[in-house]
């Protein structure tokens, strides 16, 4: 009998029920879309903020102030200590390996040019291909870590090309001073070897780097007899904004209680990642680049908070919209309810029938709404960040619970109000 009644309502009043289902679908899609976007926005914005470059630098532990300010071209063997290039893939074996987006080593040297000038040449990876022990393949290097460089002539040095080890890139000021063009052969003299190299690109970095050369790491190592040595590594990692615990840990991880230590170690705080890098690479000291790490944290927090508040507003909007409509639709059926009462139906069973009808409609509406909402989230993700928004399973129970609560909250008071009316009055049409 119940089924028959519900079927009857759904069939005979399909216009009205469709309207309710449609509105619920709208509300559900709004909730789904916003929740999905909100939960993923942190990762997405974090990814975008990587354009600011590395947030961690790794240096040899005993590198001191003095070895850093050596005289260009001179004395670089003095006081110098290095990391081993062979150790670098270990960066991708730490606990937070997945959060390490990119990294690149540096090795500086003073090289003499044919014009007699001595310039700072930096050996690095451009798009260095790594095959990790974990079976993962990875292209690491500065091409993606210097997004603000303009290549004014030529192109980025491509390490996968043949003969790439004998090519270099030059800063625009240096190229201007030496009168170089892309394709020119340059004779470089290092402390051990001399090489003829080809200029593949000229960059405008808007800083000191414009007066220097960037070359493949192998080339600089060979020129200065420092095989396998790197003087520093820049790491770009996705991190969680620092909180009080992270700040305490950064000062001295050993002073934490074992429980705090575990929480800290297993959260992607920049200090925790630094600590793990130091564990993985022998003789290294990793430190956060405060300018990038702190600002990232601030911006991420603000963006997330903004999205949370907008989401809350739209959830309230969706909730009120749905419960409004449900209330309206129940009140509209006062005549029918009056009739049911007049022919002797109990209040409880009337309430039951109406609730089942509405919840059934809500179910259909919210399932449709969930998928539409997920579509909205993807639309936002693809348009804004060029990448899909991850589907968070946690959203489903939240949306389901919300719709259920809102529908109940919208219909129950209305049903009770209508039930309180006397059937004769309702049927008569006066209220």
């Amino acid at each position, binding site marked *: 009998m119940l089924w028959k009644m519900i079927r009857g309502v759904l069939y005979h009043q399909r216009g009205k029920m469709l309207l309710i289902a449609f509105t619920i679908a709208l509300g559900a899609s709004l909730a789904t879309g*916003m929740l999905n976007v909100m939960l993923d926005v942190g990762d997405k*914005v974090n990814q975008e903020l990587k354009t*600011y470059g590395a947030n*961690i630098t790794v240096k040899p532990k005993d590198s001191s102030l003095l070895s850093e300010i050596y005289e260009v071209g001179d004395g670089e063997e*003095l006081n110098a200590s290095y990391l081993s290039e062979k150790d670098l893939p270990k960066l991708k074996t730490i606990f937070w390996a997945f959060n390490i987006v990119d990294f690149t080593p540096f090795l500086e040297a003073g090289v003499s040019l044919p014009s007699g000038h001595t310039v700072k040449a930096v050996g690095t990876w451009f798009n260095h291909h790594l095959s990790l022990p974990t079976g993962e393949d990875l292209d690491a290097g500065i091409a993606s870590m210097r997004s*603000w460089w303009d290549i004014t002539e030529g192109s980025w040095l491509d390490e996968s090309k043949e003969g790439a080890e004998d090519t270099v890139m030059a800063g625009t000021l240096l190229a201007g001073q030496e009168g170089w063009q892309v394709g020119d052969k340059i004779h470089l003299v290092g402390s051990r070897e001399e090489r003829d190299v080809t200029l593949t690109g000229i960059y405008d970095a*808007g800083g000191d780097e414009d007066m220097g050369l960037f070359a493949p790491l192998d080339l600089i190592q060979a020129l200065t007899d420092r095989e396998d040595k790197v003087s520093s590594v820049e790491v770009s990692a996705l991190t969680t904004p620092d909180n009080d615990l992270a700040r305490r840990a950064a000062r001295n991880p050993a002073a934490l209680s074992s429980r705090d230590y575990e929480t800290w170690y297993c959260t992607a705080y920049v200090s925790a990642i630094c600590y793990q890098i130091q564990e993985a690479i022998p003789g290294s000291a990793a430190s956060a680049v405060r300018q990038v790490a702190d600002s990232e944290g601030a911006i991420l927090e603000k963006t997330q908070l903004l999205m949370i508040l907008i989401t809350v507003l*739209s959830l309230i909007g969706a909730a009120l919209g749905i419960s*409004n409509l449900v209330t309206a639709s129940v009140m509209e059926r006062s005549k029918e309810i009056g009739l049911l009462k007049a022919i002797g139906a109990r209040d409880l069973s009337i309430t039951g029938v109406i609730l089942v009808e509405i919840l059934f409609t809500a179910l259909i509406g919210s399932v449709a709404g969930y998928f539409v909402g997920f579509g909205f989230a993807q639309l936002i993700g693809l348009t804004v960040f060029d990448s899909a928004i991850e589907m968070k399973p946690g959203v489903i129970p939240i949306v389901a619970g919300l719709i259920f609560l809102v529908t109940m909250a919208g219909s129950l008071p209305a049903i009770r109000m209508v039930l309180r009316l006397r059937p004769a009055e309702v049927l008569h049409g006066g209220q």
Partner: protein
Amino acid sequence: MTKRKMFLRMITASLLRRRSRMLIALLSIAVGATILSGLVTIYIDVPRQMGAQFRSYGANMIILPGEEGSLTGAVLEEAMQVIPSENIVGATPYRYVRLDMPSRQQSFTTAGTDFDEVRKTSPYFSVEGEYPQNRREIMVGKEVAETIGVRLGSSIELSYKPLASFEGEASADWVPGAALLGSSEGFNEAVLNVSAVLDEEGKISEIEVDALSQTENIGSLVGTDKAFLDQFLGKSLPLTLGEDVDALSGATISSQAVVDALNSSRSRENARLSENKEHYTVAGILSTGGEEEAYIYMSLEDLTRLTQEEIMDVAELSVSASAEELEGYAANIQEEYPALTARLVKRLAKSEASVLSKLQALVFLVTAVVLALTLICVSTTMMAVVSERRREIGLRKALGASDGSIRHEFLGEGMFLGGLGGLLGGLLGFAFAQMVSVHVFGSSITFQPLLLPITIIVSMAISAVSCQLPIKKAVAIDPAIVLKGE
């Protein structure tokens, strides 16, 4: 009773008598209007607010003295008027000099600056202890602190050796038997002093080099390496490095400085070499993870007093503006003050533009989706409320009301509700935006006066449009059928 009075009475009566339903409609419009006005206010203000957040990355413009001309506080202040003052987050002057630490025989790059402004342009500086507030307080970089082993509250002595200044041709003083003094800038612009004595033939018979300001164990060796110094003996001035004497291996720049100092040396009477020493207290230790850790920071006043020179090398500006605006400001400064060079910190300006535009697009799309869905939601509720009154419409038609007048009346009612809901929502929305702004960005939001009438008009339009469809349907049906309830 005039027609207009009757119309008003019908609307008010309907609103009053059908309180609960009208309340539902009003609530739904108000919610829609709140979302509209709240989100749009946030959307308009987000670039400004977010832009301010991005300033935590630090200075995005630097002003340097040009080819000729120097940078002073007055010139900087004048040049900064090109940029609207509300956009300037901070402007920090810097002057870099090498100061010696006599007790450790080392020298460090020292920056003279304004710490109040540093807090604004470099909010990422993490200082253990405090920023210096009083005279003769300094902040040292973490690396410096570790190298020389100072702690908070330690006192260190710093000295400044200016370049000796001379008048007239130096060679006039190079007479036999003269005792000469000279100085020159060596590595990192650190000053090195040389004293020499000429014999009766005018050749160098004694030489002493004070190279403590140079890098320890590299440049400083020019003062102690006997083989290097012995080369000078018996030579006559001026000298050329590489011909008369060979550079000390590993310290070309310092060697060149020794030669330069000799070539510009004057007799002891004509030379003015002075050294200024002061004691400073370490008020803070700076860690940034960058090269700033290798510097010592002191107030510009302290550095001016120490060096007796009031100039600055560079000013860092943190300006909240888009990349194009920044470029415009830099070009204007360049044009109006040819003695200055204004440059953008490309890394920040470029990255900020790309990230900020994404965030803006995000808020825009979110606003658009939420608004579209909410407004549809509002109109479905309005439709439900109106279609419920089919019987009433039928009755009126049966009593002889024309289709036009019925439509007119419902429209009036809908627009009244829309207007009221819009006003309510517009104000609530602003309150919401204000709350978001205070919570998220810690600053109040600008009220958009135009938005309130827009919200009201949109709400009225939405409710009018959503009334139309069900009325049209109801009016089209034969009153008898409607009244019968089928």
